[in-house]
């Protein structure tokens, strides 16, 4: 059973557009939600993260929106650039040390292409 569901699988936008990647989860014990960015031939790199007590977090052109009641969160990339073309993964984790589920659960990824 997939713990974190991510959509779309691929996304193409024009430069300056605002791609949106959506993720949903079922386990309400998840309390930390990082996003990873992966360029071809490289390992995933932590991009931005949010906790469910915050509805929105911005870092530069990247914004995470979080809807705790719907158990959904999304990544928005403002003024997207060709250099943002990469695969993006959402993830979820239980940060409470007493839980046995102490690892990241990843979505299946979204391949983003930004055309110049």
């Amino acid at each position, binding site marked *: 059973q997939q713990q974190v569901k991510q959509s779309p*699988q691929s996304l193409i936008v024009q430069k300056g557009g605002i791609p949106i990647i959506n993720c949903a989860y079922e386990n309400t014990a998840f309390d930390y939600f990082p996003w990873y960015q992966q360029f071809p031939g490289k*390992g995933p790199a932590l991009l931005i993260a949010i906790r469910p007590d915050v509805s929105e977090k911005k870092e530069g052109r990247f914004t995470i929106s979080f809807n705790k009641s719907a158990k959904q969160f999304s990544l928005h990339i403002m003024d997207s650039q060709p250099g943002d073309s990469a695969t993006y993964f959402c993830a979820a984790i239980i*940060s409470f040390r007493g839980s046995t589920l102490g*690892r990241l659960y990843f979505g299946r990824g979204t391949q983003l292409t930004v055309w110049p």
Partner: protein
Amino acid sequence: IAGITQAPTSQILAAGRRMTLRCTQDMRHNAMYWYRQDLGLGLRLIHYSNTAGTTGKGEVPDGYSVSRANTDDFPLTLASAVPSQTSVYFCASSVRAHTEAFFGQGTRLTVV
């Protein structure tokens, strides 16, 4: 060295051969992980280690084994490689379990 180093970066392996993928981190992280990445399937956890001396199975452990003799090293062994193990393998580490992970650059393995 800063971060996670994986070796080799790529390898072509004959089916049935034994292979060890190496992973070393210099961040003194307690937890380490091995993932495989396949198109359309994302990142799937193979094995993990929350601390030196302990290991655990992830989602897809069959055909793989790991050891964690010390904090820094976490090798992944394929005892007898099969073509379905063709994939990109990523080693990752985190300060401790229950925190975000940091990834190495990956090993591209082709089993023929």
